[in-house]
């Protein structure tokens, strides 16, 4: 069934859109990532103009994150208090990030910097997570399941302004979460993503939150970041395509529900290893794009300047 999208000005197959939305929704539900890094290239592939793809996928991320969050909320897997703290730091960070982005843009080659940022960040985070996850997995298998994890006390616990995060079972200073939110917010704004797959590892490894709680909490803050992005694009660029978003999100919300159920079945170590593989796959894809000779050297952008 073909459908004409009024903003993208192209006719595409509705079932294809449902499929893309569904697939990304499943990942979103399992890992607590928004899926922006995945859905935008898929939309390019279908022939949607880049500006429309970026803006509309932000809208679809809102939908699948809400869907996933509600499922996690029912299981009491969301640390709302932590979510608000991260979000607070995140909003300040993304405000600064947008300013930094515009400054870099004025210098030119911001596109390249963003890509290098991606490769570096994803590569390092993915590799560390994979090594740690595999080790934990092996230990869990040999130890017969129950592993006593020794809480390592570091500056996260010793800094002042301690607050109790009941759902996460943490009693730590409020400064580290604020800083994590701030840094992820800034990176997300510069790199143009929701920041889920930087936030999730940061929450696990820096803040020491239990993997079970991390995903719901990440979805919670992604909703706000993605909603903000959608509004910004709708108002300044008029590039949000409602029918496109509708088909993506119908697939996405259903996928997110399924993903959440899959995620519950997985062990924390398995989840971390899978997320690490996903992060590394995205990293490899971007690195290859930079290293291999593209089949088409030229690209067309309508409108002058930029």
């Amino acid at each position: 069934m073909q459908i004409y999208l009024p903003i993208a000005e192209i006719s595409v197959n509705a079932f294809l859109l449902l499929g893309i939305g569904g697939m990304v929704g499943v990942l979103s539900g399992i890992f607590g990532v928004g899926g922006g890094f995945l859905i935008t290239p898929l939309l390019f592939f279908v022939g949607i103009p880049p500006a429309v793809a970026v803006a509309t996928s932000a809208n679809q991320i809102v939908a699948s994150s809400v869907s996933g969050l509600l499922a996690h909320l029912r299981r009491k897997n969301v640390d709302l208090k932590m979510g608000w703290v991260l979000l607070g730091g995140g909003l300040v960070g993304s405000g600064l990030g947008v300013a930094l982005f515009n400054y870099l843009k004025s210098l030119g080659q911001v596109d390249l910097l963003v890509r290098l940022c991606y490769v570096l960040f994803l590569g390092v985070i993915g590799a560390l997570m994979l090594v740690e996850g595999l080790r934990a997995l092996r230990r869990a298998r040999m130890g017969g399941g129950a592993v006593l994890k020794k809480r390592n006390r570091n500056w996260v616990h010793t800094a002042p302004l301690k607050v109790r995060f009941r759902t996460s079972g943490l009693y730590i200073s409020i400064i580290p979460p604020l800083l994590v939110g701030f840094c992820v917010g800034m990176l997300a704004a510069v790199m143009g993503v929701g920041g889920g797959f930087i936030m999730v590892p940061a929450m696990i490894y820096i803040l020491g939150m239990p993997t079970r709680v991390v995903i719901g909490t990440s979805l919670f803050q992604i909703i706000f970041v993605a909603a903000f992005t959608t509004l910004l694009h709708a108002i300044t660029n008029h590039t949000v395509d409602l029918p496109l978003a509708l088909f993506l999100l119908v697939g996405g919300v259903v996928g997110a529900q399924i993903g959440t159920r899959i995620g519950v079945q997985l062990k924390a170590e398995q989840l971390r290893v899978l997320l690490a593989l996903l992060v590394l796959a995205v990293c490899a894809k971007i690195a290859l794009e930079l290293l291999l000779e593209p089949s088409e050297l030229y690209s067309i952008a309508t409108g002058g300047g930029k």
Partner: protein
Amino acid sequence: MIRLLVLLALLFARPLWAEEAVVLGLSRDEVAITARFDGSDILIFGAVKRETAIPTDPLDVIIAIAGPSSPVTLRRKDRVAGIWVNAASVQIGSAPSFYAVASSRPLTQVLSEDEDRRYGISVERSINAIVTPGMTVNANEFTQALLRIRKEEGVYQQLEGAVRVDQQTLFHSSIALPANLTEGTYRTRIFLAREGKVIARLQTKIDVRKVGLERFLYNLAQEQATLYGLLSLVIAVIAGWGASALFRLIRLG
């Protein structure tokens, strides 16, 4: 006096060179883009009106349809320190979003170089000159790339032999408008040519417009951007909540 006026009127009514003129019909002069729009075929047919005997040289017919034009920026990737980055760029004054030229024989046989330049008929001539000042790169390479990419996308079409001419008088052709059609006025020109020269031409337009829901959403996005953005978010949240509630019902029920 009256006789003189009639004579003058006749003289000015049609240009002196037009011994033959085009009479045109279009299967439709409006294309409505609805939610189910998936491309459209336009049938163009017509006849040659003449008061003299048919000349012995073969008659050729060229039909050109051009979509709305806009400026275009072309970028080329180059290898810098081992990685591929956007390096050179060129801005092109204006390029049509769609261009199809159908002819009764290959265009180079039908039309001389001069005539093509004069009327801007071939796909290559439909693109306006380059405007970036002081560029050191070979601009021609970039225009060629634009033509190549758009031809591959099917938005620039060169349809040689797609116009059928009967008895040097009747002609017809069918041009397929693709699914990714931009809204606007599509300038449609018909040329009659003999011996590489244009001997008569006619210009008309096809209006491509979004209608119904497509129209409404497009206008809303342009004119009530904040409202539209909020609407998108509300729909997203409701859909997310709805799916969650639905799955819960399924699980419980």
